[in-house]
Structure formats: structure tokens, C-alpha cells
């Protein structure tokens, strides 16, 4: 009988570069920067590592494919290094690989590192999608971008809950304004500027109904985690963070091709979070989760995710947003580090960056952003589009 991974693995060291338009740094620089912080934080040396998972999504257009860019940059001594890619959940997938490897008993200490250098692709926004779809899908998929893919979620959400575009956009603007406030105080964040709801509403339209400030930053950055067997974690540090669950769920095609899905939520997020809560032993997420970093690639994604995670009732996330439920001083602070919105979104690094914030919060090292006495932290990572995606939901705690 499978028994899952709860409390079998601990995080003992993490590193995260400053995210942003890092014209000063190449991918190798970012990898080394995140790695250096992580091993120093764990108090280990390179020779202590037994296996490595490297996450990069589009960085293959920059440093190339395979895991060799990492093994060469870090001069890993002929270690087993695996490259993973799963859209925007790539960073979480790298960590999941390392965590499951330790949980399996195959290794004691593993490294997960995610890196992305989007600003060397030449695009504002993500690189042209049609090249990455495969030779058949590029013939039949629409001429779409990430913001447009998620804008269609907002169109449905507004329609179903009877929100006029102005009413809907105002709720979304409050979601973004909250993240800007949090990100402004974070020295490693990409976009460190507070913006008002009014400014957000006046921003240029990117993909109707989403405007510029409904979209996250497109950034360079890297983040890393060192994980080990839970029973040896305190040999390294007094305050390790324990993995309660790491789940992923992928679309079955039903959303895109069958007509049952109403387009106002992300079906795999509901399935994935239910599995994660079950493994972590969480009965009532609204009461038990202390803080979250969710995949706010777009404001609408964050709003819908509140509901998909079972935190807000269906169609009512807007009420929680208005009540400040997800603000830094609210019941469940969400995006305390600024989120993808302001910390930025170097794809391969993002899942690990979310975990970095949870890790620092549990250790009481989040400075002005410190959340009092957290119990469970949740990260949520999403790749693809609402109609065709993969979701990663991870729960950590003490």
C-alpha cells in the first residue's frame, strides 16, 4: 500500500537570486548564484550531493537542452542530473523529483535547481508559442499567447457571475495591487513599486479583459533547494521545513474538447489540491492553511485559484479579496513575497521561488513580510492554459 511522502523529506537549504531583467547575468551566473546561497544555507558541500534535478522550460533556447548546462555550470562531479520541464510548473517539478528520490530511500541528500533567462529570448512576454506546440498542434491551435489563454477564463468568470467588465476588472485590480504592495518591500523582487487600483484599471489592454497590471513580470532568475531525509535534517540545522505533500494533476482533454466544463475554474487544480490536502491531513484549508504562494501568472488565475483550492466559496473569491482576506495582515496571506506578479516569473525557477518564501517564513526570516506563527504553507504552480494544463500543489510545514 502506497504511503505517500508526508514528513519523509525536509528542506535544509535554499537559495534564490534577485529576479528581474538581469542584463548583467547569464544563465550560468544565475544558477551559480542560487546554488551558492543554497549550499551555504544548508552548510553542506558539493560532494555531499547525491543526485540533482534541474528545471528549465524555455531556457533551452538560451543555454540549450538537457541537464548539462547545470552540471557544467556547477561542475557537478559526474552526478546523476535530470532535467525536467512541465510548462510553468517546471520549478516545482524539479523539487518534486528531488523530494521523491529522497523519499524513495534511494538518496540522502539531493539538489533541485530551477533557472530561466527569459530576457535573452528577444520577446516581450513569453516566446512565440506556436514553435513549442508540436508540428500538428501548430496547424490547428489558435494564434494565442499566455495572457489571451487566461483572459478567456476571466470572460467566462465575469459572464457566469454576472460581473460587468468594470466590476470584474476592479476585483482583479485589487488582487494585483495587494501583490505590488508586498513585492515593493522585497529586495529580491523584480517589480518593486506599489500601484493603485486606479492605475491598474487605466493600464493598456494586453488581452481583453486583462490589462498590463493583470499580467506577471517576465523575468530572469534561479532558485534552488537542498533536501534530505527528514530523520537527518536536524543534523544540518535546527529549523528545517518538512514536506507534507507534493502533488501534480494534468488535464485529460475534457476541458478543451468536452462541453461539461464551464470555463470558470481550473479542473485539475481542484483535483490536485484535494489530493494534497488528503496527504497532508488537512480537513479545512480555509482554517488550516497559514500562507500561500499561488501561480498568479495573471490576476484572474489567482482569483480563481482561491476557489479551486477550496479557500473561497465558488464565485465568492471577490468578497474575500475586498475583505483583505489574502492581504499580508489577512487570515491567509497570499503572495507575501510579491508573487509572480511582482517577484517575477522566470519559468523554471518560479516553483522553487515560491517554496523559498515559505521556507523563509517558517524560519522567521521574512523581515517586514514575516507572517506570525505559520503552520502550513501552500505553493501552487500552474503550467499551460485553463483548458489544457498541469497543476502542482505543495504543502510544507514544521
Amino acid at each position, binding site marked *: 500500500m502506497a504511503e505517500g511522502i508526508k514528513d519523509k523529506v525536509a528542506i535544509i537549504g535554499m537559495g534564490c537570486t534577485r529576479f528581474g531583467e538581469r542584463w548583467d547575468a547569464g544563465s550560468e551566473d544565475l544558477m551559480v548564484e542560487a546554488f551558492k546561497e543554497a549550499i551555504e544555507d544548508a552548510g553542506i558541500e558539493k560532494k555531499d550531493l547525491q543526485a540533482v534535478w534541474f528545471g528549465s522550460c524555455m531556457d533551452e533556447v538560451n543555454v540549450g537542452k538537457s541537464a548539462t548546462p547545470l552540471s557544467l555550470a556547477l561542475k557537478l562531479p559526474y552526478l546523476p542530473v535530470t532535467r525536467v520541464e512541465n510548462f510553468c510548473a517546471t520549478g516545482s517539478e524539479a523539487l518534486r523529483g528531488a523530494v521523491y528520490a529522497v523519499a524513495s530511500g534511494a538518496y540522502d541528500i539531493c539538489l533541485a535547481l530551477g533557472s530561466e533567462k527569459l530576457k535573452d529570448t*528577444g*520577446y*516581450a*512576454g513569453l516566446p*512565440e508559442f*506556436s*514553435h513549442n*506546440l508540436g*508540428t*500538428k498542434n*501548430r*496547424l*490547428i*491551435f*489558435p*494564434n*494565442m*499567447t499566455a*495572457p*489571451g489563454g487566461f*483572459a*478567456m*477564463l476571466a*470572460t*467566462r468568470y465575469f*459572464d457566469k457571475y454576472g460581473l460587468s467588465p468594470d466590476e470584474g476588472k476592479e476585483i482583479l485590480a485589487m488582487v494585483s495591487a495587494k501583490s505590488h504592495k508586498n513585492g515593493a518591500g522585497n529586495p529580491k523582487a523584480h517589480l518593486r513599486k506599489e500601484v493603485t487600483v486606479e492605475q491598474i484599471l487605466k493600464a*493598456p*489592454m*494586453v*488581452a*481583453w*479583459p*486583462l490589462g498590463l497590471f493583470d499580467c506577471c513580470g517576465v523575468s530572469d532568475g534561479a532558485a534552488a533547494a537542498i533536501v534530505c531525509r527528514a530523520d537527518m535534517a536536524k543534523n544540518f540545522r535546527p529549523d528545517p521545513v518538512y514536506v507534507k505533500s507534493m502533488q501534480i494533476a494534468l488535464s*485529460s*482533454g*475534457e476541458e*478543451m*474538447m*468536452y*462541453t*461539461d466544463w464551464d*470555463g470558470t475554474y481550473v479542473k485539475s487544480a481542484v483535483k490536485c489540491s484535494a489530493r494534497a490536502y488528503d496527504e497532508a491531513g488537512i480537513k479545512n484549508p480555509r482554517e488550516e492553511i497559514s500562507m500561500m504562494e499561488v501561480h498568479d501568472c495573471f490576476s484572474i488565475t489567482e482569483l480563481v485559484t482561491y476557489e479551486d483550492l477550496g479557500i473561497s466559496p465558488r464565485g465568492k473569491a471577490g468578497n474575500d479579496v475586498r475583505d483583505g482576506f489574502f492581504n499580508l495582515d489577512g487570515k491567509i496571506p497570499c503572495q507575501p513575497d510579491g508573487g509572480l506578479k511582482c517577484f517575477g516569473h522566470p519559468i523554471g525557477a518560479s516553483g522553487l521561488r515560491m517554496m523559498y518564501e515559505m521556507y523563509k517564513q517558517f524560519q522567521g526570516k521574512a523581515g517586514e513580510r514575516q507572517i506570525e506563527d505559520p503552520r502550513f504553507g501552500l505553493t501552487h504552480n500552474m503550467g499551460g492554459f485553463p*483548458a489544457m494544463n498541469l497543476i502542482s500543489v505543495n504543502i510544507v510545514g514544521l
Partner: protein
Amino acid sequence: MSGIVSYGAYIPKYRIDRKLIYKSMGWLNPATFMPGEKAVANYDEDSVTMAVAAGIDCLTEIDRTGVDAVFFATATSPYAERQGAEIIATALDCRSDIRTADITDTPKAGTTALLSAVDAVKAGSIKKAMVCAADMRVGKAGSAQEEIFGDGAAALLLGENDVVAEYAGAFSVSYDFVDHWRSAGDQFDQQWEDRFIRDAGYTRFIVEATEGLAKACGIQKTDMTQVIYPCLYAGDFKKIARTLGLSASQMITPLLGQVGYTGTADPLMHLVMALEEATPGDKIAVVGYGAGADAVLFEVTEEIEKIRGKQKGITGHLTAKRELKSYEKMAAFRNLLHTEKGIRGENVAFTAFSTLWKNRREVLGLVGSFCEACGTPQYPVQRVCVKPDCGAIDEMAPYRFSDRKGSLFTYTGDNLAFSPDPPAIYGFVDFEGGGRFWFDVTDVDLEEAKVGMPVEMSFRKKYVDEKFGIHGYFWKAVPAIRRIS
């Protein structure tokens, strides 16, 4: 009995007021002014896509497996090699054991294709033949052609049964009359002096062919209910009627002021227009002009009432229009202006023709799967049923979505994606009878789009890869156009 079994037409939705063209370019050549408006193919349309649209209209409620030949008449095929008729036949989901041909090089090709189809049916080698004629001729900026040329298409299905207009005879004259020409590889027509065209060609060949037709059929010109011929010059259009001794009721009102002169499609579009109003017993002569002339006579039968109003036809498409308010937009659509595309527009993903070959029916024909275990239609083609509680493996039958109506499930207007006409609008279509997929949406303004908007599918150019000279085709959703009835 051989003749026309069904008819259809297509006129692109965009219409431009000729005053707008003149306002922009009249300074160059003040004599170019023409009244009225003309139809302008959208940036994602060409002769092939318009021919498909007319073909679909013509095949409304008709079994497509019965089509044995597809002839494509055009002088503006997007490919010099890669047959347009084959693309059209695949898009129409015709059988593969059929005959196809492109008939081209002169605006007369429309009637010549019609005659080839009639002859094939009469010979008994083909039971049903489809003729699609379409043109999208481009005039240089500031030229008279830019004002005159309009874009459009017509389609006729010829056969032996259920004939709505019986073939009654034909007469052709062929001359190497070089009134205009376009060399291989050239973008624009060149032409000789207008007086020469009018006096030595236009006013002579149409008359010669029409008189020859009357003689060949053993009837008087006065027996002809209508005589259709293209209007290249308003004054000389009437002069031809005077020479032939036609009464006002025998003349058609040309679409020049609403659509423009549509080349190969022109006589067939006017024939469709005439058939829409025709009564049994009418004798309709249609004359195609260009390097000589073809004159063809049809006699309308009682069957005409049975198919009337099933098509959108000329009348339906004339009313479905959007005003093109910018001359520059038209010029950019036709590559008369080199516009900034940005990295997303320049960087076109390569086309794998081997992938297209494997999936040609699915991509060009919009044929998906129908699960015979649970009855769920699905697109694209699946081997494992998408219905969650079914999941049957390999129990699929082909299922065509191209002629299914649907509604817009959700949508967006994207300013980040490259589009020659931003924002790029796309969304999900839920099909009547089941099935959902995401498609580009075209011929619509973002402000008009609504959740639940009725849509239908239109064969369009999805991309142009200039580096490899590839026109890539797929289906887009468009707001549903109502039929005449």
C-alpha cells in the same frame, strides 16, 4: 438532363467605400474615381478560401460524397504549383477518387470551367462536378484597377439529376487579345489602353459570343430572359445591350457598385444572383469575357423552387457586411504597405508537410471523431474517447465539424499575439450536437463578440510563411450569417 443542381456564393464581409480609396490615392490619378463600394477580402482570405466558402454554400444539405470532380477557376491562385482545387476538395471533405483541375490565366476561366464541368457530366464520365470560381485581384495603389477590382466567389454543382437549370447550349470565341497581362512572378496586372480594350475587345467579343449562342441554340436573343455579362465600363456595358437589342428587363444590375469586378467569379456570381430570382422556364445566358468570350445558356426548371433560400447566396452575403474604414488597412492586407510585424509576426514556425499529409482531413477538412460507444463528437481526431465516463479506445468514426453551427463559449482580444488586424480574437466554440475546441475568430470586432454568440466555421489562411513561400490554411469561427429564407 444535365445542368446546374445547386449554386452558392461568397462575398467577403469587408466593404470599402470607393470615396475612401479616392481620398487616399486620388491625388495620383484624378480620373480613377468610381462610385459605390467594393468587397475586400480580409487579411486571412484568398481565392482558395473564398472558393471553399462558396463551395460550402453550394453544398448546403447536399451529400458531399457524391461530388466526382472539383474545378477551380481563378487568375489569382496563391500557389503557382500546388493545385488550388485539391486544397478546396480537401477542405470540402470530398472523396479522394475524384478529378480536380485549376482553370486559370484569364477572367474567362470561370465560364470555361463551367463548360468543362457540363461537358464532363454530359459525357457521363462524371456524375456530379463542382465548379468554384474565385478571384482576389490586386490593383496598384492609385490605379483604376484598385477601384474596379472586387473580391468574391461563386460555386455551381453540375449534375444529371435534380437539375434546377438545364444546360441548353454554348458558344465560345478565343482570341489572344492582350488587353491585360501579368507575367509569371509579377504581382500586378499591366494593361493596354482602355479605348483599345473597349472598342476592339469588350464591346465585340461579348456580342459575337451572344449572337453565336442564339444561333447555336436556335433561339432569338429576345427569347433570353436575361443576358449576363461583366460590367467593365458602365457606358459600354449599356452599349453592348443596345448592340444586342436587349430590353431593360433582359439586363442585370451589375454588382460593380457593391462588390466590384471579381474576375473569373464575376459571370458566375451574377448567374447565382439571377438563379436566386429565377422562375421555371427562364432562359439565362451567361457570358464570360477575357481573351475572347464563352456564352452559355441555361433553362430554369421546376426544381428551382426546392433549393431556393437554402443558400446564403449573393443576397445573403450582400447584407452581411462590415465597413472597412481605412484605406491603409486594405493596402496592408494586400501587401501594398510593408507593416511592422514584430518578432512574433516574423518568426513563423515551420510547416511539416508530412504532418499535414497524415492529418489532412482533420486539418483542412475539420473532420474530427465521433465515439460510436457513447455518441460524443470530438475535435481534433482522438483514439481514446474524451468523455470522462466513456474512454472507449478505437471506436471512432469520422465526424465533420466544418458545416456545424456553434456558439462562442469564451473569447479574448489579444494585443500581444501578432495579427495583421489586431487584436487577435480567439476563443472556444461549442458545436451544436457536441464537441468543443479553440479557434481563431475572424470577421468580428472585439466589441461585437459575446459569450454565446452564434458562430459558424470558415476556411481561412492561418499564416503565411514568406521565407518558405507557404500559405497555411485552417478553420476559424465567424459570426453566423443568416440564410435568405
